[in-house]
């Protein structure tokens, strides 16, 4: 698999690249901001782009905007956005138009090679990946009349896996 990495921190870019190399994923380009990333993607046509949510110049949500542009302009390139924010609104904004081939992971997941490579493989396969921490936050939100209370523990487990964007086959395998 060929990926490009966009993050304004060199340390993260090189670490991530090394980690992915160990898992047999080739990094074909690195970008420090959204513009460079878009140029790289259109030149290299990678299988996926791993994008930091906050990049220069405004350090707000360039990553999400860049990811959405890549999905419209290069539908064959999957995107995986890395973020420090647990807030579901970012993930929703990323996936609301077309959830296929996009992923939203907390940034510290990059220390888990398995989680990261798994997420990359899934977005490249066209799935939608949402970080488990965000899913569990949504599921554990206190509600006055919680429809989730009617579910059994097993059903909740399945729902959580569905919410993370896993396919039926994967859910079967995990369970």
């Amino acid at each position, binding site marked *: 698999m060929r990926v490009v990495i966009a993050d304004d921190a060199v340390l993260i870019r090189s670490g991530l690249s090394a980690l992915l190399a160990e898992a047999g994923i080739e990094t074909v380009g690195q970008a420090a901001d959204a513009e460079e990333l878009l140029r790289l993607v259109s030149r290299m046509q990678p299988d996926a782009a791993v994008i930091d949510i906050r990049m220069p110049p405004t350090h707000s949500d360039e990553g999400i905007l860049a990811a959405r542009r890549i999905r419209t302009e290069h539908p064959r390139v999957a995107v995986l956005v890395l973020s420090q924010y647990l807030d579901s609104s970012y993930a929703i904004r990323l996936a609301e138009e077309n959830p296929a081939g996009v992923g939203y992971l907390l940034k510290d997941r*990059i220390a888990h090679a398995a989680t990261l490579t798994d997420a990359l493989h899934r977005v490249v396969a066209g799935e939608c990946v949402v970080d488990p921490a965000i899913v569990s936050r949504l599921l554990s939100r206190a509600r006055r009349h919680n429809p989730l209370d009617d579910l059994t523990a097993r059903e909740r487990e399945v729902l959580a896996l569905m919410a993370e964007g896993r396919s039926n086959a994967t859910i079967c395998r995990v369970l």
Partner: protein
Amino acid sequence: MRAFRLLVWPLGLGLLALTAPLTWRLPDTTYGGSAWWLLWLEVAAAFALLTVALLRPLGVGGLAVAVSGATWLVPELAGWTSGPAVVSTVADAWSHLLPALIVIGLLASSRAAVVLVAAGGLLGAGARLLLVDPFLDPDCWRRCDHNPVLITGMTGAGRWLEAAGVVLTASATLWAAGVSMARGRGRLLHELPEFVGASVLAAGLIAPAVLRLVRPEAATHPAYLVCFLLAQAGAVALALVLIRDRLGQWRLSRRLARLAGALESAPPPGALAGALRDAVADHGLQVRYWAPARGIYVNAEGESAESTTAGDRQVTLVTRRGQPVAAFTHSEGVSGNRLDRALGAALRLALENDQLRAAALAELRELQLSRSRIVERAQLERRRLERNLHDGAQQRVVSLALLVRMLGQRLNGDGQPGLAARAEALTRATVEELRRVARGIYPAVLADAGLSGAVLDLAESSTDLPVSLDTLPPGQYTGPVEDTAYLVIAAAIAEARRSDATQVSVSGHERDGRLVIDVRDDAAPGRRTAVTELADQVRALAGEIMVEPESGGGTRVRLELPCGW
């Protein structure tokens, strides 16, 4: 000077009374002989000049005009052939001094102009009296009492000196008139009739002197007659203009005095401007007050009001002991000087009263603005801190987690997996801790998704207390408003949790340019200190915060904030 003013008329009238009957009886006087109404016109001009001297400010100028009025008929005595020869000569030479006196009195705006014009007049008159003397009769045919101060045999040089005097007077007059025109630009429209009257008068006097250099004077010559008429008409017109101005001033004073009488108690702010507008019949008149602490002009409500000098608007300052009190912006049809002079003591007091109020309001406004700026700065600072944390420490700890993980994989072979696992767990905990701290300092989602997005995330993160959201206005507000509203909602939810509420609902809407947010819960109000501690910040944005018990035993925290900050 006051005594002089009182003396102008008696002295002037006395001199006139002396010269007029004499002139009357002279058969040879230049114009008097030709038509009786010309003499009457000359007498009217003399009276007019005495009136002008009375109405104009005192000083060298006033004195010069008074003397010219009193001696207006003197040149006519040149035709008194049966009288002493020296009288004819002095009377003849006087016609050089009259234009100089008029220019000094009415047109000269600088000391240099006064000196030059006076020099020209004296040179011309002196040369005529001492060297030229047109009445010298060497053969004693008609009169034998010769001019005793005449220096004979110098007529040629005398004519040159006389011509030099005339040229000096004329050019200095042109220069003085040019300077007053340049200085008077802007307020010229007011003083234009006065300026024109004075110029016509001066021209009527100087032109014959210039003419006389090239052709001998003759009463019947139309050019001399026109000049004579111009001078008399100019003097009369000038007096009429000044009388009209004085009457206008008097009427304005009366109107303003009546206005002051009507203001029995302190008028409401802005009323004074309205009354002044009516009194001076200028509906565009604006009154701005000086706010000394801020160093700007403000309106009656204390709002900054810049001067609008567009078009024909003029600004007149009202001062007290050198300090500005107010500035009137009015049309050129209203004389600023006249307005300033006409303001009586009562109106000035009312004006100062309004100024104090406007200045206090301006100060209050500035205070309110500075409070809101402090809130804004604090918010920007927290946002900056969160950014620094995110782009600095959080990034580094994530990199650290990456390194620890890679290190752990290598160490695995050395049989010490426990240590690496602990380091990994510690870095993961640090990452989560930092994420919580950064969010506590400033939730980035507030800037990225607005108030509704941030409050949604507040609700989602509550695992113990159900937080339901009703409609929240989707609009984006300015930083300070969103930040303050978010802090109040977060504090209200936290206090509800502390008061053992079992449910919280957040709703909001916009009404009349104000953002209204209600946070309701089912616990008793209690003290709710976290909410009330935010009251200062809310008030700094001219908002309100209220904690009220609800009928069912619950509590409602209501926040109202103007959206415009």
